[in-house]
C-alpha cells in the first residue's frame, strides 16, 4: 500500500517523466566541443570527387606560441584553441623575382567561441610591406563571420545533429595575391568540420576518427 507521501513523490516523478520528452538541446550544444583538436584525430573529406585527409599530429611552437599541428593533405597547418576561440597561423608570401616576401604572418582568429546562434565576429590585419626595395604593397586581410543556423547535416560519414552553420566572408588585398571568398561551414559537436560550401565547390566528411 503506497502512503500519501509516496503517492506525492510518484506524482512529481511522473510530471518529470512527461516533461522529459521535450528540450532544445541547448545544454548539449553548450557543453560540446565544436572544433576538437585532439592528437590522433583524423578526418577524411570528399572534395569535388577527390579525397583530402586532415589529421592532428601533435604540438609545436610557431612564432612563440604553442600550437597544434594539423596535417592537411600532408601540409602542416598550425592552430591554437582556447575557450575564447580558434586561431590559425597564416602566412601570406609574395614571390617576386624569385624572392619571397612575407606580407602577413600571424595567428588569425577563425572562430569565436562558444558558438551562439546569431553571433558575429570580425578581424582585420593591416600592414604595408616594401617589396624589392621600392615597391610598397598594402596588405589587408579581413574576415567577417556569423553563426546563422543550427542544422542537422547528412554526410557519407553519418548524420550529425545540432551543427552550427558559420558563414564567412574573407577579403585579402595583397597585390597579385588578392582575392575574395564566401563560404559556409557546418561544425558538428565532438567532430568539427563536416561540410563546407564555397560557391559551387564543396567539401563533405566521409570518415572520421576522434583521437584520445
Amino acid at each position: 500500500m503506497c502512503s500519501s507521501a509516496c503517492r506525492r513523490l510518484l506524482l512529481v516523478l511522473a510530471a518529470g517523466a512527461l516533461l522529459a520528452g521535450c528540450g532544445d538541446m541547448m545544454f548539449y550544444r553548450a557543453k560540446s566541443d565544436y572544433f576538437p583538436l585532439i592528437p590522433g584525430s583524423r578526418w577524411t573529406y570528399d572534395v569535388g570527387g577527390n579525397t583530402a585527409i586532415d589529421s592532428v599530429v601533435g604540438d609545436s611552437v610557431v612564432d612563440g606560441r604553442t600550437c597544434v599541428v594539423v596535417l592537411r593533405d600532408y601540409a602542416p597547418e598550425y592552430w591554437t584553441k582556447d575557450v575564447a576561440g580558434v586561431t590559425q597561423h597564416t602566412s601570406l608570401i609574395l614571390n617576386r623575382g624569385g624572392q619571397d616576401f612575407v606580407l602577413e604572418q600571424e595567428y588569425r582568429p577563425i572562430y569565436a567561441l562558444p558558438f551562439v546562434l546569431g553571433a558575429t565576429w570580425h578581424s582585420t590585419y593591416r600592414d604595408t610591406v616594401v617589396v624589392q626595395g621600392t615597391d610598397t604593397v598594402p596588405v589587408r586581410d579581413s574576415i567577417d563571420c556569423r553563426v546563422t543556423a543550427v542544422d542537422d547535416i547528412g554526410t557519407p560519414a553519418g548524420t550529425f545533429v545540432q551543427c552550427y552553420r558559420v558563414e564567412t566572408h574573407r577579403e585579402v588585398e595583397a597585390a597579385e595575391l588578392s582575392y575574395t571568398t564566401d563560404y559556409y561551414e557546418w561544425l558538428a559537436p565532438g567532430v568539427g568540420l563536416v561540410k563546407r560550401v564555397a560557391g559551387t565547390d564543396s567539401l563533405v566528411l566521409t570518415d572520421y576518427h576522434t583521437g584520445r
Partner: protein
Amino acid sequence: MLPLVLVPLLVSAGFEVGGRIGVVFPASGLETTHDAAALFGANLGYEAGLNRLTLAYAYSGLQARQASPYRFDLHDLSLGYGREFVLGRALSRADSYWGFEASASAGLGLLGRTFNSARETGKAPYGALAVGFFQRQGHSRVMVALDNVVFSESRPAGNTSSVSLTYMLAIKGGVAYVF
C-alpha cells in the same frame, strides 16, 4: 477584497513564502567552459505535518571561463515534494525544531545563451533530488540544502532519438516565513 480572502486562507492552511540564494556548479562537461554562478530564487510552500509541497523559481547566470561577452541564463520553475525528518525540538517551544529534509522535484528550465547581442533560447525539463538541514522556529524557517539536478534533453535524430543529460550541483540556503 482579495487580501481579505487570502490572508485567512494563508493563516489557516500552513503556507510559507521564502527566498533562497546559493551557488550552482556546472558539470557533465559544461564546467570546462562555464564557471560556477550565483543562484537567486523564491519559493512558495505548503506544509502538512512533515510533508511539504514547494513551488520554486530560481535564476542563475553562468559565465564563461574567460573574459567574454558570453552568458548562459538559466531560469527554472519547479514543483517539489519534501519530507522533514525531525531530529530535535526546543524544550521551551513546541514550534521550534530542526532536522533533515529530503525532497524530489521536477521542473522546467528556460534557457538563454547570449554572446554580445546574439541570443539563442531553449528549454529543458529537469528532475532534482535534494537533501538538507532545516530549522524551524515560530514563523521562521531556515534551510541549507544540496541539490542534485539533472536536465534532460532529447530530439529525433534520423530513426533514433538523441538524448543528452546534464548534471548540475547546487548548494543553496533559504529563509521562509511560515503563515
